[in-house]
């Protein structure tokens, strides 16, 4: 094969998945070198691949394409490679091939979803993602993580099956396997929509995320935060742009999790809730569906992956060096971890969309798109959510980890590779905030949007700073909800608690039914049936014969004697053949005469 074609068009998904298989066999300096080279190669490959469908083949009479490239898939491909690179640097100090392999297969699955040219390869990569990501939770190797991983994979199997059912109906209806725009009408589209919505964590289907991500390994959470939800964002943007339902789901998605985030004690769970909130902005943008909104969604996904990875790295570093992650256990860490604190603050400023940080140049596009379409309620909700994000992710996360009350914990900064990964992430967050034009240049539609206008900057600063004032006053007055060791019920209650009750009640009811059935059918009925089968024939015969013997004036003794003989013969099945034949003959004659 032509070498140029191989480099230009090699599906990055296969590069990662095949590459992952080699990782356990490498040692020494080869291993980090190889692992860091993979995302760079994949990035180059994506950049060099011309638009269009490549790597097509036929299977079962359907046209499948492993690599279909356009502007939309390219942006997601780039950012998936970048975050894999950062995540791997962050993870380099761990000695656990399971996590590296799972991360690469998972990232490969996400890239596969991005570049899938047909619905079947999409589904396969979708499931690869679900399975590989589960190992990043399992690899924490605690009881809580095992249980969370089990719930996680069950939810994703449900979502995957919805997607598969939708795909099969779709192929059946249209006869085509092509992956493209869809209208939300008909069973197939609703099932596909539902399958994507599970992965996008749209409420009330969201609790798998806040349940599982905080239980993942330190590095695992960084990868998890990037791929599953954002590949769902990509797919929604590919298939359902302009679907009005998404505007309202997205608006709800931005608000519901922030209340939980305010109450939550586990820092990584706060970040998980804020992740759902951020994906809500993207869903809203996809629902609005204008060029500005889609550009906003894609750029926000790009920036979000970076700052969310950065925040999970910072929280992961704290977990790694202190062994603790609850607000109630932490505080005052800035004293000995100033660099981690600084990087966390950059991530916090970015997610809060502070001017000069990456969130500002992307989120504002979505909110402006809502304003241009005169979606008053949506606009107000998104602004409320923006203030709320700053409140919990922007202030709460760094405040309770690094400032707040002094927990007395004195630990060193995390290992150098972790600091480098965070430093690079923080640098890119600031770079994109200050100079967003390289990002704007790769968006699906031409960008005319200017983020830095006076009105915009001042408006956003007022929104954030006066939100911070509210935080400040509430903390000082003691009205702020105290951090406490508790959990907050979410919609996973339905499958965690209700299913347990369902199990125990069905256990009680069904086992009781079982016991009754056993007594009635096995012990009593079967016994009686057996006795009847044993004695029935003799009794029947005696009922017929007794009147005859009475007519024949046999003595009682004689009757008893013959009865017991007949009973014994029939019981033992020892009736002479001649008599049996005569009986059968008589029966047949009777049947013939009376038929």
């Amino acid at each position, binding site marked *: 094969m032509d070498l140029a074609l191989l480099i230009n068009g090699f599906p990055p998904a296969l590069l990662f998945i095949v590459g992952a298989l080699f990782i356990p066999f490498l040692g020494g300096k080869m291993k980090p070198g190889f692992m860091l080279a993979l995302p760079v190669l994949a990035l180059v490959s994506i950049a060099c691949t011309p638009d269009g469908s490549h790597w097509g083949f036929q299977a079962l009479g359907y046209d499948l394409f492993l690599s279909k490239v356009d502007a939309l898939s390219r942006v997601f491909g780039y950012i998936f490679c970048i975050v894999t690179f950062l995540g791997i640097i962050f993870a380099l100090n761990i000695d656990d091939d399971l996590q590296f392999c799972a991360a690469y297969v998972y990232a490969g699955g996400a890239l596969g979803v991005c570049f899938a040219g047909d619905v079947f390869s999409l589904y396969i990569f979708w499931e690869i993602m679900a399975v590989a990501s589960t190992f990043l939770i399992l690899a924490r190797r605690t009881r809580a993580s095992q249980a969370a991983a089990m719930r996680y994979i069950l939810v994703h199997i449900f979502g995957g099956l919805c997607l598969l059912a939708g795909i099969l109906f779709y192929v059946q209806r249209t006869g085509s396997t092509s992956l493209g725009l869809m209208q939300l009408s008909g069973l197939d589209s609703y099932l596909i929509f539902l399958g994507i919505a599970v992965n996008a964590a749209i409420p009330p289907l969201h609790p798998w995320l806040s349940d599982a991500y905080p239980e993942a390994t330190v590095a695992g959470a960084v990868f998890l935060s990037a791929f599953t939800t954002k590949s769902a964002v990509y797919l929604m943007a590919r298939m359902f742009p302009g679907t009005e339902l998404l505007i309202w789901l997205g608006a709800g998605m931005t608000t519901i999790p*922030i*209340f*939980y985030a*305010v*109450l939550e004690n586990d820092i990584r769970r706060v970040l998980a809730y804020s992740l759902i909130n951020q994906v809500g902005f993207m869903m809203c943008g996809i629902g609005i569906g204008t060029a500005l909104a889609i550009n906003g969604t894609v750029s926000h996904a790009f920036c979000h992956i970076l700052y969310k990875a950065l925040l999970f790295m910072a929280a992961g570093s704290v977990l790694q060096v202190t062994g603790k992650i609850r607000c109630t256990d932490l505080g005052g860490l*800035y*004293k*000995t971890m*100033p660099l981690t604190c600084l990087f966390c603050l950059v991530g916090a400023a970015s997610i809060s969309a502070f001017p000069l940080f990456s969130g500002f140049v992307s989120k504002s596009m979505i909110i*402006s798109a809502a*304003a*241009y379409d*005169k979606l*008053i309620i949506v*606009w107000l909700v998104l*602004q*409320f959510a923006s*203030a*709320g994000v700053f*409140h919990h992710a922007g202030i709460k996360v760094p405040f309770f980890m690094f*400032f707040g009350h*002094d927990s007395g914990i*004195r630990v*060193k900064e995390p290992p150098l590779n972790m600091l480098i990964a965070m430093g690079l992430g923080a640098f890119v967050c600031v770079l994109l905030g200050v100079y967003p034009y390289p990002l704007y240049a790769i968006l699906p539609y031409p960008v005319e949007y200017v983020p830095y206008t*006076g*009105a915009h900057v*001042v*408006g*956003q*600063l*007022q*929104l*954030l*700073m*006066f*939100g*911070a*004032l*509210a*935080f*400040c006053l*509430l903390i000082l007055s003691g*009205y*702020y*909800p105290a951090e*406490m*060791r*508790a*959990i*907050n*019920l*979410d919609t996973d209650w339905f499958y*965690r*608690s209700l299913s347990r009750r369902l199990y125990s009640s069905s256990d009680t009811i069904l086992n009781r039914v079982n016991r009754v059935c056993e007594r009635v059918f096995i012990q009593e009925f079967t016994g009686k049936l057996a006795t009847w089968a044993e004695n029935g024939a003799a009794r029947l015969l005696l009922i017929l014969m007794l009147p005859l013997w009475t007519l024949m004036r046999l003595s009682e003794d004689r009757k008893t004697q013959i009865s017991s003989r007949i009973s014994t013969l029939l019981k033992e099945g020892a009736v002479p053949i001649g008599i049996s034949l005569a009986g059968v003959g008589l029966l047949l004659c009777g049947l013939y005469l009376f038929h």
Partner: protein
Amino acid sequence: MKKELTVFDKPKNVNRFLYLFYLSLVALLLIDPFIHKHGAFGWEDVPGFFAAYGFVSCVVLIFIAKLLRLWVRRDENYYG
């Protein structure tokens, strides 16, 4: 171990930080009327709208969250 940072251990520094913060709030309100605005909605152009909205949002957020806590809070071992 390296020397630790103790900048926020001194109440004076915390107060300085807070004054700086309040000062920036005042500055944001003062320059607001001089900014050229053309918001999609009329109220966006009202000076201090975003400040009020941000403040109220956060208070409402906390208020609702506290109510929510009464309803959804459970012991850490609730699920066993």
